């Protein structure tokens, strides 16, 4: 039977993994190999995808992909590590310890003064970033890997000026499935760090050790940081660290990055092995006796055959051999084998496949997992199901239940918006507004009593105070919405949303992964665009980026709030919700158009890990909110201040620099008047509105400050209700701010960035025109 036919709650042993190419390799790397045991946990509310439990963690898989995996039901789940060897006291092998692994004074130390370079490598969700922050503190520099849109962070270990740690993207293997994996692999091979710090999640050790096995093949000094040990031991698990070190041939240091324990010891080991260049003790991971030794003989034969080519290409021989067997195109290209050698390799591999009765990729994956199984059997006492996992299961019964998932999602999002706009955010906003009003009034009185020149008085009160003040009052709402979105993402809920939204998103040509950037886009378009970098499919990534501008960001809230208070008092929640929904619906229509034109084809397969739910760290969230608030305030007192003053100046003076009594005669009216006729069908032909919308290109918040100055409180008389509605719709949909366009330009190039500007304006104009016409008819 295939995996799709397995019932919920039942377990099965994998017989055969179908499919081909990079996706199939990804399945194998995630542990779905012949002989592995899987259990079906649930299906998404719409019947697709499914959630599986394998090797102690949860994975999502589409039904169409599950059909390619043949399984055989097993009666009961075999107790993992039930045959754990009787624990003996294991002597420390001396790896990473001064004078034990190599006699004092010998070894091959780096010259004094060398800056030791470390690569920090590990799976996603293993605590890598937390560890990186612990190691480097604030001594970080954030950059970019050349040629690819993958982030890079470098930092010096606190207190060690002769070190440089590079945080590599979270990866599951060294196969070329995604740009992250290619970048990490190339970094290790090309930049040749002096040592690798491999962070392993102790609560998910089998899957994490798969990457460790491949890193060991690279023959670079390495230390394994066994993270989340506190969680493991709290749930009854333990690790015989000495025995694990002996089996892996590298130092293993138990740590808890979150609690900052063991990190100092890790640093000591890392510096030692880097300084003395202590490479992994050579281990023949392929067992010469297992399954007739087919894989073992194959690996060694090919290692001998390609030895000279690997050395010429600067590749570790063992790593190159296993990649050649897997058919890794990048490695094959680097090796430049001759015709004879290529044929010999093929014959050797074919023989191995025949003897082993598995295809080459599955055989290599099986070899690695077999060794991992032996390591875990001999050194790990598995914890009982962790409290965190039990809690996640209970919560998921509701949040991803067949009939409850989507109503729960709608309820949660409605609650978020309600608390933001009607309760917490609104309350704090009214306090701030009242404070700003009092300050403005006091300044007004002060300037009047001091007899300040009318023009300067006008600039300060009608320009600066009114303009900047109108924007500042929205800070609480923006911070509140960001807080809730961060909470949803960091808690692990948004991964679940991706799971049950996958089938729905596929109807518009995307996969469940796209929901993450789209939801983040409700906060700000820039991080939303950046978060698409983890998407393995270039097509999906491009399409998602083009859709994020349709998700109304927090910077537009001042515009909505401004018009709602003037034209739609008491119906704020209704109008706001309507605008957000309109943005989503327009985005869906755009996606359908893209799917049938430029982005034909289906979304890529959806394979994603579901981490446990967790409470986000207070400090992390507070830091993020502070950064957001600081960025907003900086923009208010820089970009918006300048925009305010420039607008005030242009609308107060004519081309001869005389003060005008009617702003219709000003320079600003002349410029904006050239574009205003284009906006007539949308009911927005007023030059003041056009000016405000143009200023929104710099920062959306400045639309409000510009309107306040230009209308001087008289906007209610200048627009009809349908005009106001059209303006809201135009603001919702037109070009994003310059920062968002810069982000899109970085990810997709100038051509696409320009397309977004023009396309969004066209869509906004069309929608605003329709709204205006409907409003006039009603």
């Amino acid at each position, binding site marked *: 039977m295939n995996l799709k036919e397995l019932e919920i709650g039942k377990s099965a042993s994998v017989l055969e993994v179908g499919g081909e190419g990079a996706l199939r390799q990804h399945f194998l790397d995630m542990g779905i190999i012949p002989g592995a045991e899987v259990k079906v946990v649930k299906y998404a509310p719409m019947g697709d995808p499914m959630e599986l439990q394998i090797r102690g963690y949860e994975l999502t898989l589409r039904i169409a992909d599950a059909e390619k995996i043949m399984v055989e039901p097993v009666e009961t789940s075999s107790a993992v590590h039930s045959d754990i060897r009787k624990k003996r006291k294991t002597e420390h092998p001396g790896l990473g310890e001064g004078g034990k692994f190599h006699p004092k004074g010998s070894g091959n130390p780096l010259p004094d003064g060398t800056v030791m370079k470390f690569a920090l490598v590990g799976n996603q969700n293993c605590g890598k*970033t937390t560890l990186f922050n612990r190691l480097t503190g604030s001594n*970080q520099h*954030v*950059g*970019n890997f050349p040629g690819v849109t993958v*982030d*890079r962070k470098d930092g010096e270990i606190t207190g060690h000026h002769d070190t440089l740690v590079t945080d590599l993207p979270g990866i599951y293997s060294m196969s070329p499935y995604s740009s992250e994996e290619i970048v990490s692999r190339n970094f290790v091979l090309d930049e040749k760090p002096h040592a690798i710090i491999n962070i392993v999640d102790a609560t998910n050790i089998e899957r994490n050790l798969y990457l460790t096995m491949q890193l060991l093949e690279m023959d670079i000094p390495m230390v394994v940081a066994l993270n989340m040990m506190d969680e493991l031991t709290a749930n009854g698990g333990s690790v015989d660290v000495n025995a694990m070190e002996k089996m892996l041939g590298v130092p293993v240091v138990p740590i808890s990055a979150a609690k900052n324990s063991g990190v100092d010891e890790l640093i000591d080991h890392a510096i030692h092995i880097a300084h003395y260049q202590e490479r992994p003790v050579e281990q023949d991971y392929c067992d010469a006796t297992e399954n007739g030794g087919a894989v073992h003989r194959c690996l060694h034969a090919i290692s001998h055959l390609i030895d000279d080519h690997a050395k010429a290409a600067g590749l570790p021989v063992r790593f190159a051999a296993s990649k050649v067997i897997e058919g890794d195109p990048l490695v094959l290209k680097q090796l430049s084998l001759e015709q004879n050698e290529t044929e010999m390799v093929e014959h050797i591999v074919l023989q191995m496949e025949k003897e082993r009765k598995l295809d080459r990729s599955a055989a290599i994956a099986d070899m690695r997992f077999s060794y991992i199984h032996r390591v875990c059997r001999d050194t790990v006492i598995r914890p009982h199901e962790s409290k965190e996992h039990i809690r996640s299961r209970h919560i998921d019964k509701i949040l991803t239940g067949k009939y409850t998932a989507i109503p729960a999602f709608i309820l949660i999002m409605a609650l978020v918006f309600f608390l933001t706009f009607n309760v917490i955010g609104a309350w704090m906003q009214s306090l701030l507004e009242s404070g700003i009003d009092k300050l403005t009034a006091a300044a007004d009185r002060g300037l009047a009593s*001091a*007899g*300040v*020149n009318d023009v*300067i008085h006008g*600039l*300060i009160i009608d320009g*600066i105070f009114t303009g900047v003040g109108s924007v500042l009052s929205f800070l609480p709402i923006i911070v509140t919405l960001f807080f809730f979105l*961060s909470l949803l*993402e*960091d808690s692990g809920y948004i991964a679940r949303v991706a799971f049950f939204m996958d089938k729905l998103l596929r109807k518009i040509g995307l996969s469940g992964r796209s929901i993450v950037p789209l939801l983040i886009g409700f906060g*700000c378009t*820039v*991080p939303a665009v*950046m*978060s698409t970098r983890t998407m393995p499919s270039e097509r999906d990534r491009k399409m998602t980026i083009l859709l994020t501008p349709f998700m109304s960001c927090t910077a537009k809230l001042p515009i909505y709030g401004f018009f709602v208070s003037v034209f739609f008092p008491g119906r704020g929640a209704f109008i706001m919700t309507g605008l957000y929904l309109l943005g989503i619906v327009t985005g869906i229509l755009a996606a359908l158009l893209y799917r049938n034109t430029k982005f034909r084809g289906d979304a890529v397969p959806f394979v994603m890990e579901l981490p446990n739910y967790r409470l986000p760290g207070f400090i*992390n969230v507070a830091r*993020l909110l502070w*950064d*957001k608030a*600081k*960025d907003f305030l*900086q*923009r208010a*007192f*820089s*970009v918006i*201040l*300048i925009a305010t*003053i420039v607008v005030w100046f242009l609308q107060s003076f004519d081309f001869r620099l005389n003060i005008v009594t009617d702003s219709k005669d000003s320079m600003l009216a002349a410029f904006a008047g050239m574009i205003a006729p284009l906006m007539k069908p949308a009911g927005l032909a007023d030059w003041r509105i056009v000016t405000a919308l143009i200023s929104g290109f710099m920062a959306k918040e400045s639309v409000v400050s510009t309107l306040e100055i230009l209308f001087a409180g008289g906007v209610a008389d200048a627009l009809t209700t349908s005009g106001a509605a059209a303006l809201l719709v135009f603001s919702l949909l037109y070009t994003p701010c*310059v*920062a*968002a*366009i*810069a*982000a*899109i*330009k*970085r990810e997709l190039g100038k051509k696409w960035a320009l397309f977004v500007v023009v396309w969004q304006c066209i869509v906004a104009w069309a929608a605003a025109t329709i709204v205006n016409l409907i409003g006039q008819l009603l």
Partner: protein
Amino acid sequence: MSRLDIILVILIVLSVLLAVRQIIRSRKNGNSCCGDCSKCSGCRKE
């Protein structure tokens, strides 16, 4: 224009210059939203 007027004009001009300097510096340092989250830690969560 009185002395107070001149002082206020100077303050406004200084504010604008400081604002421009802040924009330029923050673009270089990555301390504002420049559209490049790899340059800043503010707008992107890890």
